[in-house]
C-alpha cells in the first residue's frame, strides 16, 4: 500500500516561465525510507513542499497527489497537520517558542490535546531523544544540532505517519548529523514511520535508504536502490555528491557490486594490487603571514579558558584548515585573529589587511541590491565580479541567492578591500558539492596570487581536498598540526572516508585521487 501516489505532477511558480516540476510520477510505499538527491535548484524542495498542503507554494499545479489513496486537497486540516510532518533546513528559524518543553508541546497544543496527554508525550519524547538535561533550557541556548533534533522531536510528538525532511543535516556538525540520521533510521525501523528526505550530504544517510530518487531540472532522472543508482549516475553532474566509496567504485574497473560503505570500500580496495606510488608534491611556504603566541581567552571572568596558551603560525600563501569539535573555540580563535575580541594574555602578530567571512555569509550584506553592496557603480570592481561569476546576479537581493551564489557574492564583498589574509568561518556549511568545489577553486586562485586563507571547518573531505595544512584545536590548544597528508594520514578516527578505506593498504592516501594514483592498471 502506498502512502503517497504522485501522478503526472507538474508545477510552475507564479512569476516563473519554466516548470519547476515536470510530469512527476512516484509511488512512495508505507514504511519506506526514500532519499531524494539532485543539485541545488533541481526542484527537490518544491516537490517536498507539494506533499504538505500547508506549505504548497503558489503557482500553477497540474496532476494529483494521493495520500493514503485520497487526494491531498481533500485531507482535513487536522489530519494533514498530524499525519504529515515536515522539517526544514534551517534549524534555528523553525523553532517557535522560547523553551524546549513548550516547543515540544506546541504542535500538540494546536491539535487541542489535553494537558495530561501533552505531559506524558513531552516526557516520553524527551527520554527517547535524550532531552532530560536540556528540557528546561531556552531554545536560544541550544547548539544547531540540538535545535534540529528538537525540531524532529516536536514533529514526532504529533505521531505522524510520514516525515518529510528538506536537507535536515546540511547545517549540522558531523556528530549531530549522525545522531539525527540514526534517529531517522530508528523511527523508520522501529515505529514504521515513512521517511522522505532530500539531502546533499550522503556519506552517512545513503546506506539507510531503501530507494534513491534523483531529480534534475524538475524531472526524475534516476530511481533505484542505493547500490544500483551509483552506476546509473556515473558521469552525471550528481556523481560528485555520492558517498566516497561509491565514487571510488565508479572510478575502478571491477565487476563486483557497488560499494556504498567504508567497510565495503576497504574490502574492494584490498582486492586490488597497489603500488607505493604516492609521492606528493608538497608546496613549501616559508614567509610568515600571521603568528599567535601564547593566547589566553575566556568570555567571562569566572568562566573557563576557551583558548589556553595557544600558539599558531600561518605561512604566506597557504590554505590552513582549523578543525575540531563543536564549541572547542575555533570561531573564538578567528574572532581573536580578526581583532573582534581581545585575548587577556598573548599576542597576535601580522602586518597585513584581514578580511573575515562569518558563518552565515548573509551577514556581510547590508543593502537591498547586490550591486549596491559590491559597489559596482561606475563599472568599479567589475573584474572581481566577473571572476566570481556574479554578473547575472547583480540586480538580485542578496537574500534571494542560493547557498552557493551567496557564498561567492560574500567572498566578492570581502575581497573588495584587497585583503592579504582571509578568514572563513565554516565556509562549506549548507553548500552542495558543486558549490564546494567552486569555492575550493576560488580559494586556490586566491592563494596563487599570494593571499593567505585560514578557514574553520567540520568538513574533512573539503579540507583534505583543498587545504595545505590542517590543525586540530582541542581544549584551547592546537594539539596536532601538519600538512594535509601528515594530518589525515596520521589520524585514525578524525579523517576522510578515503583515508579510512585505504588505511593499511595505501599509506597516506586522503582523497580518491590519491588512491587511484596508487592502483595498478
Amino acid at each position, binding site marked *: 500500500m502506498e502512502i503517497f501516489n504522485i501522478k503526472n505532477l507538474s508545477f510552475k511558480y507564479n512569476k516563473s516561465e519554466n516548470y519547476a516540476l515536470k510530469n512527476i510520477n512516484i509511488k512512495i510505499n508505507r514504511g519506506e525510507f526514500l532519499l531524494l538527491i539532485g543539485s541545488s535548484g533541481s526542484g527537490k524542495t518544491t516537490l517536498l513542499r507539494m506533499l504538505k498542503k500547508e506549505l504548497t507554494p503558489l503557482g500553477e499545479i497540474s496532476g494529483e497527489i494521493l495520500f493514503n489513496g485520497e487526494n491531498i486537497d481533500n485531507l482535513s486540516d487536522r489530519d494533514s497537520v498530524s499525519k504529515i510532518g515536515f522539517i526544514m533546513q534551517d534549524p534555528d528559524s*523553525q523553532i517557535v517558542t522560547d523553551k524546549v518543553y513548550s516547543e515540544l508541546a506546541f504542535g500538540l497544543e494546536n491539535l487541542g490535546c489535553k494537558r495530561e496527554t501533552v505531559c506524558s508525550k513531552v516526557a516520553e519524547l524527551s527520554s527517547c531523544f535524550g532531552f532530560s538535561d536540556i528540557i528546561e533550557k531556552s531554545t536560544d541556548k541550544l547548539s544547531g544540532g540540538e535545535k534540529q533534533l528538537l525540531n524532529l522531536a516536536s514533529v514526532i510528538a504529533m505521531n505522524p505517519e510520514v516525515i518529510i525532511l528538506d536537507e535536515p543535516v546540511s547545517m549540522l556538525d558531523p556528530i549531530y548529523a549522525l545522531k539525527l540520521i540514526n534517529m531517522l533510521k530508528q523511527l523508520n525501523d522501529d515505529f514504521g514511520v515513512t521517511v522522505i528526505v532530500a539531502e546533499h550530504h550522503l556519506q552517512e544517510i545513503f546506506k539507510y535508504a531503501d530507494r534513491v530518487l534523483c531529480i534534475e531540472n524538475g524531472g526524475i532522472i534516476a530511481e533505484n536502490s542505493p547500490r544500483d543508482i551509483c552506476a546509473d549516475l556515473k558521469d552525471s553532474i550528481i556523481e560528485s555528491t555520492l558517498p566516497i566509496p561509491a565514487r571510488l567504485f565508479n572510478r575502478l574497473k571491477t565487476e563486483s557490486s557497488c560499494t556504498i560503505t567504508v567497510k565495503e570500500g576497504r574490502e574492494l580496495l584490498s582486492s586490488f594490487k597497489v603500488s607505493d606510488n604516492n609521492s606528493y608534491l608538497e608546496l613549501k611556504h616559508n614567509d610568515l603571514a600571521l603568528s599567535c603566541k601564547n593566547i589566553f581567552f575566556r568570555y567571562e571572568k569566572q568562566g573557563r579558558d576557551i583558548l589556553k596558551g595557544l600558539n599558531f603560525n600561518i605561512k604566506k600563501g597557504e590554505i590552513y584548515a582549523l578543525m575540531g569539535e563543536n564549541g572547542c573555540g575555533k570561531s573564538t580563535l578567528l574572532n581573536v585573529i580578526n581583532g573582534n575580541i581581545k585575548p587577556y594574555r598573548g599576542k597576535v602578530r601580522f602586518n597585513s589587511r584581514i578580511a573575515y567571512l562569518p558563518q552565515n555569509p548573509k551577514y556581510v550584506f547590508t543593502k537591498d541590491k547586490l550591486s549596491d553592496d559590491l559597489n559596482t557603480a561606475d563599472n568599479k570592481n567589475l573584474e572581481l565580479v566577473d571572476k566570481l561569476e556574479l554578473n547575472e546576479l547583480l540586480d538580485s537581493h542578496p537574500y534571494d541567492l542560493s547557498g552557493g551564489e551567496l557564498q561567492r557574492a560574500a567572498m566578492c564583498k570581502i575581497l573588495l*578591500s584587497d585583503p592579504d589574509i582571509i578568514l572563513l568561518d565554516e565556509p562549506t556549511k549548507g553548500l552542495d558539492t558543486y558549490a564546494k568545489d567552486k569555492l575550493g577553486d576560488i580559494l586556490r586562485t586566491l592563494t596563487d596570487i599570494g593571499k593567505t586563507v585560514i578557514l574553520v571547518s567540520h568538513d574533512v573531505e573539503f579540507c583534505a581536498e583543498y587545504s595545505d595544512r590542517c590543525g586540530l584545536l582541542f581544549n584551547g590548544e592546537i594539539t596536532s598540526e601538519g600538512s594535509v597528508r601528515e594530518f589525515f594520514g596520521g589520524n585514525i578516527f578524525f579523517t576522510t572516508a578515503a583515508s579510512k578505506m585505504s588505511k593499511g593498504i595505501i599509506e597516506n592516501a586522503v582523497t580518491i585521487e590519491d588512491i587511484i594514483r596508487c592502483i595498478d592498471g
Partner: protein
Amino acid sequence: MNSFKNIHPAVSFFCFFFIIFIIIFSFNPIYLIIGYLGAFLFSLTILDKKAVFKSLIFQLIIFALITVTNPLFSHNGATILFFINDNRITLEALIYGAVLGFTVTGVIIWFKCFNMVFDSERLIYLFGKIFPSLALVISMTLRFIPGFIRSFRQINTASKINGSYRLGMKRFLNSFSAVITDSMESAIITSDSMKARGYGLKGRTFYHRFKFNLRDLVYLLIFISAFIICVLFKTEFEFYPNFTLNSINVIGIISFAVLSFLPFIIELKEGVKWKYSISKI
C-alpha cells in the same frame, strides 16, 4: 534552591499582589517597615548577597531623593524646621516624603523578588490562563529577542572588520536595517513551521507544568485571610497638620507580618529541612 518558586504560580502571584497592594495603599510606616524587612530577608535567601546590596544602594538613593524633594514642594504641617527662599520646610512634609520614599523602595524590592520567582514560564502561565494567544506572543518574543541581538552583533562585527563603513553611526544604521531584513526572512520560515504544525486549528489548548495541590490551597487560604484581616483592621495615621497615630490595630499588623514574612519563612524552612536531611544521609 527556590522552594517558594515551587508554590503554584497563581498562589504566589496573589501573595505578591496582596503585599504590594497593601504597601502602596496603606501609606503606613509600620506596614512599610514590616513589608520591607520581609522582602529584604526573602531577597537574601533567593538572590546572591552582592545583588541585594547593589540594589540597596539604588534604593537608598531613591529614598533620599523623594524624602528631600517632598518638603520642597509641600509646605503643609505645623512643625516648621527652617525656611528656604521664604518657603517653610516642615517636619510633617519631611516625614510624608520619607514614607513616600519608603513606599517606593518597598515596591522596588518586592518587584525584584517577584522577578526572581516569576520566570518566563510562570508569567506565560498566568497570562496564558487568561489570554492564550498573548501567552504565545510573549513566548515568541522571548525567543526572538536574543536571536535578533546576536544577528545584529554578527552583522555589525562583519562590516566593522571588513571595513565597509568607517563611521560607527552609519554602520550601526546599516547593520540595523540588515538585521530587520534578516529577521523578516526567518519569520517566514517560522510562520511556515507554525502552519505545518497546525497553528490556527480550532480548539488550541494550553500546556503548562504546574499542579495545584493541597499545600497550595493552604497557602492560598492563609494569604487571602491575612489580606482580608489587614484591610478590615486598619492602623491609621494622619500627617497634616500634625503627625498623629489615630488607631493602632495589633491584629492587622500581625496578619500583615504573616503575609510579608511567609515567603522568607517558607524558604528558610525548606533550607533547614534540606540541611537536616543531608546530615542524615
